[in-house]
């Protein structure tokens, strides 16, 4: 099968496809999904609250966005691994995504502006730590009986989807397993897969998270609960 594929498309061809049409398709699917989910979610609206607000709480929604983003002290004490791994993953993922100079070039190309990056050995170490965090997240899900029971296909799929770009990027940088050109093509392909499927999985939280937190805070504020 691999040989048939290889005879049809060289490594360079695959790399060119991922940088050209592949990227266009991924971006197209991402926009399609986001438009669809956006309309779907926001057009549902909320039932009008006819009760008089119990407290005057301007900015309650905005404050909640901030406060809920910080880990609770009780969580730190009870299960320190949970916030540690979750924060580690998110910080590591964003740092490798946004602070690796070749990735910044991508942003410059699309958005027309750029920012300073980090030295590649540092990104390299961060990528490794982020991969360890993904392994930690997967272990937490598989080892905890309650979490295992409530986990579905989507929960494992998003772990694989976010781990693949890190893994292929790490292997490409170190010239491991496959040739650099092929690994780079697979790296870009995995990132495109992540981009295209993001709106259709729970990864859509990258966009809905803050909106949901604002709503929670605002509703709680109206009901007299301090944010």
């Amino acid at each position: 099968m691999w040989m048939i594929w290889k005879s049809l498309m060289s490594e360079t061809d695959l790399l060119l496809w991922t940088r050209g049409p592949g990227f266009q398709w991924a971006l197209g699917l991402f926009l399609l999904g986001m438009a669809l989910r956006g309309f779907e979610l926001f057009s549902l609206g909320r039932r009008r609250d006819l009760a008089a607000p119990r407290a005057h709480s301007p900015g309650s929604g905005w404050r909640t966005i901030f406060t809920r983003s910080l880990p609770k002290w009780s969580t730190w004490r009870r299960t320190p691994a949970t916030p540690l791994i979750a924060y580690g993953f998110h910080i590591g993922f964003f740092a490798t995504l946004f602070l690796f100079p070749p990735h910044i070039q991508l942003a410059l190309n699309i958005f027309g502006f750029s920012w300073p990056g980090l030295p590649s050995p540092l990104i390299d170490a961060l990528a490794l730590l982020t991969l360890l965090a993904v392994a930690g997240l997967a272990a937490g899900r598989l080892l905890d009986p309650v979490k295992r029971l409530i986990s579905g296909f989507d929960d494992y799929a998003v772990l694989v989807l976010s781990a693949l770009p890190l893994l292929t990027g790490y292997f490409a940088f170190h010239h491991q397993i496959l040739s650099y050109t092929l690994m780079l093509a697979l790296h870009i392909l995995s990132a495109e897969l992540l981009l295209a499927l993001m709106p259709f999985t729970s990864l859509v939280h990258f966009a809905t998270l803050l909106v949901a937190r604002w709503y929670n805070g605002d509703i709680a504020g109206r009901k007299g609960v301090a944010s």
Partner: protein
Amino acid sequence: MSDKLSLPAILEAHGISRREFLKFCGSLAALMALPPGMAPSVAAALDKAQRPSVIWLSFQECTGCTESLSRSHNPTLEALIFDAISLDYHHTLQAASGEAAEAARATAMKQFFGKYLLVVDGSIPLKDGGVYSTIAGRSNLDMLQEAAKGAAAIVAVGTCAAFGGIPHANPNPTGAVAVSDIIKDKPIINVSGCPPIPVVITGVLAHYLTFGTLPELDGLGRPKAFYGESIHDRCYRRPFYDQGKFAKTFDDEGARNGWCLFELGCKGPTTFNACATTKWNQGTSFPIESGHGCLGCSEPNFWDAGSFYNPLSAPIPTSNKVVLGAAAVGVAAGATIGLWNRHVQTQARREHVAVNVDDLEKPHE
């Protein structure tokens, strides 16, 4: 041209000392990634080597490969090694022309059948019966197929012969293909590059003379000794890449400081060749050292691999139709689902029946 003179005799006739010859063998052994102890074996093999017959066919090409080989140094050991083979047919270098030249080719092919080395530079046009490139009234395809029959091995010199090169680039008006697309039953060594480094060509020939076998090849049929590492990994500017120091334009401070050219479109990371180590013009320099990014000329389809000045990690500009179309479909689908949800809500509200306590206390009928 073929005679029984051995290589050392020829070298001596050119005023090359034994010491210089051994030094050359040592550097060749290093180039071919052989253990240092192999240098005497290389010398011994070259000592005994009889001049093998070489037929060089130039097809759809620009003669840059021959220029690279013959003009860069005159005379050097590399050039003499080249003298040390019996070059029985080569358009540019042979004295004979017309019928006499073709007769020399025919004679060599007959005399050394099964033993000669066939070197090809240039791609082979297949469209319209191959009329776009002919020699002595014969198509390149015809001539290649005939010459390949008696060849011990084929060396495809240059990216055109190895991968199709510039003639093969979009829209490929002549239907140009590589040697390996046509010949399937002979060992083929691809010595890619536009043009290839002279010492890489001579190195491959020396390997063949020394061991009588083909060197170890990579997935694209190129000798691993020369194409085993990327330009990026061996580039003297690599530390700047790792530090995140990049030239943003060709005349900014970064460019003057000799920082990494990745952001200016350098294709070093995906290009496998010996430029960064062997360099050009007798080790003087190579493109990146001269301040321009690598074009990736030793890789397949390098001409169509996006712009030379587009960073490797940036998307290649194509039509935005797919993106815009998909976004429009998303908006339409989202709006439809939204309207449907509204409709369900309204319907539910309309069909809602108010119930009071009395209704609930009614006995079931």
